[in-house]
C-alpha cells in the first residue's frame, strides 16, 4: 500500500471508531448508574478553569471590535448604530465561536491528556475491575459537563464582551450604561439570540466528545498522551467551524436569518 491509501485507511478507521464511540455515548448516557458526583465535579472544574480565560478574551474582543468598527460607521454617518452592530456581531457569532475555541484549547486538550494518561497507566482498566463502568464515569460525565457548561460560559463571555464594547464606545463618545444596553437589546431579535445559543450546546458536545475520544483511544506511551491532547484541540476546533456552518445553513432554511 502506498502512503496515500494508508493515510486514507487510517482516517476511515478513525472515523468508524469515532462513530461507534458516539453511538456508545447515546446508548449509555441515560442508563443507570448515574455518575452525578463526577458530573458536578467536572462542571465545577470546567467552569472554574476556563472562566478567567473566556472573560479576558471576551472583554478584549468586545473592546477591539468596537474600536475597529467605529471608523467605518463614522464614515457612513451611522455612528449611533455602533452598540447595535457590535451587539449583534458578538451575540450571533463572535461570542459563541471565540468562547468555544478557547474552550477547545483549554478543556479539550486537558480532557484528552487526562484520559490519555489514565489509559496508558492502566487507570481505566483499574476502574473497570473496581466495579465501575469507565465509559460512564469518565466519558459520559465529561461530555455532559462540557455540553452544559459551554452555553453558560458563552452567556458570561457575551456579557463581559458587551461590557468591553461599552468601554470601547465610551473612549470617543459618551453613552450612559442604560442607554447602551437599551440600544443593544432593542435591536436583538429572537433569531439573533436563540439559534446562536442553541448551537453552543453542540460546540460543547463536540469539544467534550473529541477530547474523550482522543484520550480514551490514546496509544501506548507518554508520547501518545501528548498527541491525544494536541489532536483533540485541532479536531474539535475544526468541528466547531463545521457546526457553525451547518447551524447558519439550518437557520437560513428555517427562515430565521
Amino acid at each position, binding site marked *: 500500500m502506498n502512503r496515500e491509501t494508508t493515510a486514507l485507511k487510517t482516517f476511515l478507521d478513525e472515523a468508524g471508531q469515532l462513530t461507534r464511540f458516539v453511538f456508545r455515548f447515546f446508548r449509555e448516557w441515560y442508563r443507570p448508574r448515574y455518575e452525578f458526583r463526577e458530573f458536578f465535579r467536572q462542571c465545577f472544574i470546567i467552569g472554574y478553569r476556563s472562566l478567567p480565560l473566556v472573560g479576558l478574551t471576551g472583554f478584549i474582543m468586545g473592546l477591539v471590535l468596537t474600536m475597529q468598527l467605529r471608523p467605518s460607521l463614522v464614515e457612513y454617518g451611522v455612528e449611533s448604530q455602533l452598540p447595535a452592530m457590535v451587539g449583534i456581531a458578538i451575540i450571533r457569532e463572535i461570542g459563541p465561536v471565540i468562547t468555544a475555541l478557547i474552550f477547545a484549547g483549554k478543556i479539550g486538550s486537558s480532557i484528552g491528556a487526562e484520559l490519555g494518561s489514565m489509559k496508558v497507566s492502566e487507570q481505566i482498566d*483499574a476502574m473497570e475491575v*473496581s466495579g465501575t*463502568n469507565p465509559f460512564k464515569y469518565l466519558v459520559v460525565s465529561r461530555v455532559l459537563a462540557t455540553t452544559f457548561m459551554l452555553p453558560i460560559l458563552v452567556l458570561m463571555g457575551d456579557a463581559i464582551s458587551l461590557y468591553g464594547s461599552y468601554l470601547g464606545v465610551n473612549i470617543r463618545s459618551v453613552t450612559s450604561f442604560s442607554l447602551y444596553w437599551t440600544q443593544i437589546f432593542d435591536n436583538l431579535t429572537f433569531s439573533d439570540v436563540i439559534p446562536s445559543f442553541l448551537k453552543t450546546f453542540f460546540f460543547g458536545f463536540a469539544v467534550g466528545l473529541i477530547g474523550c475520544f482522543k484520550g480514551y483511544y490514546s496509544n501506548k506511551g507518554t508520547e501518545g498522551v501528548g498527541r491525544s491532547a494536541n489532536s483533540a484541540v485541532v479536531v474539535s476546533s475544526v468541528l466547531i467551524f463545521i457546526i457553525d456552518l451547518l447551524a447558519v445553513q439550518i437557520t437560513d432554511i428555517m427562515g430565521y436569518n
Partner: protein
Amino acid sequence: MTAVSIIPVLASIPELPDSTVLSIEHLYKSFGDNHVLQDFNLKLHKGENVVVLGKSGSGKSVLIKCIIGLLSVDRGDIEVLGYKVPELDHEKIDQLRVRVGFLFQSNALYDSMTVRENLEFPLRRHWIQVKAREVEEMVMSALEDVGLSHTVDMMPSELSGGMRKRIALARTLILKPEIILYDEPTTGLDPITGKEIIDLMVEIQKKYATSSLIISHDMNCVKIENARIVVLIEGKCYAEGRYEELKNHPEYRVKQFFE
C-alpha cells in the same frame, strides 16, 4: 508489618480436584495477525503460588487481562472460582472482581485522588455495604499491611516507585480477595525494593491465605517458596515445574530464564 500467619499455608497441599480456583483451558487470543496466546492451559489451586515466566511481549499481560475479563478471548475456557469468565454478564463479572485482586504492571493509582481516596474507590464502587467508620478502618488496616499508614493523605505523585507499588497492593487487598493476580510486581524497581515487595507478597499470602498468579521475569519471584513455575513461550505453556526442575531444563529457551 509483624504479620503472624494465623491461617496455615496451604501451598504444599497435593493437587485435589476441587481445590482448583482458576483453570484455563485451550485459550486462544489474537490481535489481527498477532497470535498472542495459542492453546494456553493453566491451573491454580487454593493457596498456591504460580509464577508465569515469559519474555517481554509474549502475552503475559494479555493473559491476566483475559482472566479478569478486561479482554475478551477468542476461544477457550477460563473458570475462576466457579465462574466461567467469557460468559459472564456485567453484574456477575463485578461479583467475581470483588473476589479477585489485580495488581497492575504500572500500578494504575488514580493520579487525581489521595491515597485514601484510591483505597476507598473499590470499596465504594462495588456497592459493598460498609459504614463510614468501617471504611476508614479498612483503609488503615490495608495500609498497615503494606507498612505505609503515614501516607494516607498524600497524592500518588508524592510517593516513590516502591511506595506506589505498595499502595497499589493495599488497594488490591482492601477487598480481601481470594485470588491475587500480579502483573510484573517487581518491574521498574531496584532489586532490593523488588525483594521487599516479594517478601510482602509472601507475607500477605500467608496472612490471608490467598492464591496468587504472578507474572514475571524476575528471578526473585521464581524463588518464592513452593512456587510452581510455568514458562510461556509462543503463546503456550511450554514447560512447567519447580525451580529446581526447570533450572536444568534441556531446552535452552526455558533454561535461559534461570541464568
